[in-house]
């Protein structure tokens, strides 16, 4: 099974694997993974232990696969892993910052370890630290950083040498909601504005559907699904309707819509309308009907939008299929 995600701009995908397998004794971390990754942001999603970190380590040449092949940026992982490590950045999941060094010094050093000269490394470090949002605190030892600042410093060192591809392993781990939003926006910018391909992992599906162009779903070392994020989200014909008022208004609307032949159920403050029957499916007839019903009841229509599926549904489907 070969699945291609991403807008393949060149003849070669950014990452392509063929039958990639990694077994630790009886533990099967990855099984026969064949997948292609293109430019932009690609989400790699799966529960803990699904094989996400193992895949990244194999692609970096830090682990040897039990079987199968892979290419990163056109280089074979077994023959040219050094060349690959020159062109990619890696932000590990775990803590990896020495506490007695400042972020500024550390990122400069890491840029030099990727082959940048002394002055170029200083310039790049200042640039990326600004991009990740570490300001004055960059001159303080990293031991005193909050989790959010540590994650930024980790991200900065991954970008220090201007890689063509970055592996971000759980970049939102341990962040509060505001910091999480910042980090996700940054990930999106790296993929779209900086022009650096991103492979980002998370066990939180909701995060990845916000930022990634493509999603690969791993489950127990197996490929569950790989496709554009849009395809995950746009297969439902359901509608969400919200009116001004409380639950009473919501229920009045729902009951009225039901009388007109639509299947409705409450969801939070909104009414979820199942895909309309054939008679109402054509040319937005259902939309018109909802508008008219709301007007008849004298209710202020606040929201009428297509109901997006969530990536969770893919897991549920995958679970029932397996």
């Amino acid at each position: 099974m070969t699945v291609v995600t991403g807008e393949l701009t060149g003849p070669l995908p950014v990452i392509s694997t063929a039958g990639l397998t990694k077994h630790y004794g009886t533990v099967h971390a990855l099984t026969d993974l064949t997948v292609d990754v293109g430019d932009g942001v690609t989400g790699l999603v799966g529960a803990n232990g699904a094989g996400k970190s193992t895949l990244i380590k194999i692609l970096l040449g830090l682990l040897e696969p039990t079987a199968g092949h892979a290419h990163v940026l056109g280089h074979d992982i077994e023959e040219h892993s050094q060349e690959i490590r020159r062109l990619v950045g890696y932000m590990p999941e775990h803590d990896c910052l020495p506490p007695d060094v400042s972020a500024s010094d550390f990122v400069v050093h890491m840029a030099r370890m990727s082959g940048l000269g002394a002055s170029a490394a200083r310039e790049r470090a200042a640039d990326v630290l600004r991009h990740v949002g570490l300001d004055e605190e960059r001159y303080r030892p990293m031991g005193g950083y909050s989790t959010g600042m540590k994650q930024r410093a980790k991200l900065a060192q991954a970008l220090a040498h201007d890689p063509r591809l970055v592996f971000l392993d759980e970049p939102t781990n341990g962040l509060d909601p505001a910091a999480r939003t910042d980090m996700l926006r940054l990930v999106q910018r790296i993929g779209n504005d900086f022009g650096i391909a991103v492979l980002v992992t998370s066990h939180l599906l909701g995060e990845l559907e916000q930022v990634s162009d493509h999603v690969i779903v791993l489950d127990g070392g197996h490929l569950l699904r790989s496709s554009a994020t849009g395809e995950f989200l746009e297969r439902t014909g359901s509608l969400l309707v919200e009116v001004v008022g409380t639950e009473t208004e919501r229920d009045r609307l729902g009951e009225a819509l039901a009388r007109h032949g639509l299947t409705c159920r409450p969801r939070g403050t909104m009414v979820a309308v199942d895909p309309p029957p054939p008679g109402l499916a054509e040319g937005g007839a259902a939309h018109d009907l909802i508008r008219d019903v709301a007007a008849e009841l004298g209710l202020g229509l606040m929201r009428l939008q297509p109901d997006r599926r969530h990536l969770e549904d893919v897991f549920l489907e995958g679970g029932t299929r397996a």
Partner: protein
Amino acid sequence: MPDQAATPGRPGVIHDLGYRHFEGVREGTATIARTLFVTGLRHAYGLGRSGKSKVMPFVLLAMSLLPAAIVVGVVVLTGLGSLPVSYADYTNQTQLLVSLFAASQAPVLFSRDLRHRSIVLYLARPLSSPVFALMRWLSLTVAMFVFTAVPTVLLFAGAMLAGLDKSDQTSAVLKALTLQVLLAAMLAGVSGLISSVSLRRGFAVVGSVMALIVLTGVVTVMQNIAYYDGDSESVSVGVGLLSPWSLHNGLGNAWDAGIDTPAPVDGAWVPAYAIVALLLVAGCLLGLVARFRKVASR
């Protein structure tokens, strides 16, 4: 979660100033390895690190220089016909300071990256784990060599000032420096390997002290017992194979570099000492490479 896009650009958090790509030259592996070596060498003396971390190496260096300075003063002022201590024996006499330097500075180069797991960031970059381990060892070896060579060079400068025979002194100092290279390689290997396994700084220091200071003391005592009480030269010399310092001293004795050992090292013992010393260095290097490789794959 779905409406996070509705909070655009919280001010002052992540600045949007445009991203610039790096178009400049990217150095090859050799240059990166050299940078790592130089950084490691500087860090061994606390340079480029906090002020506090400079104290230990420089206090030890000053302490090991002080006797040499006194010797030089005495020789120059009194016009002695020879140095009261040979170059190689001076290193031996200050061995406690040399071993302490190895024990205290090896964790800086071998434990920190492993304990804080920044090793992963190094190994996700072009240098492979064997090259990384080798460069770390080389940094410590050169740092150790500098530590022993500085007093030696000071002594030599004093000898020259006092007008001692130039060719005699030159050959003696070159012998001492050669022995110091081997000594530095052994001490860096042993203390580096210990530090890379025991990641807590305290344990690493204690482990190195055990291996370099306590073991050497035990070996010296056993050598003396075997020679004076056991009346066995070969046992006394054989026991000397067991510690880096007794290897250094034995080779210095065999090479006539001015170090006394309980029993003279001669005959087939000389190649045996040399081979064991080289095997010790090679073994430590292999151990270090295996250790870093294992950590890299985790």
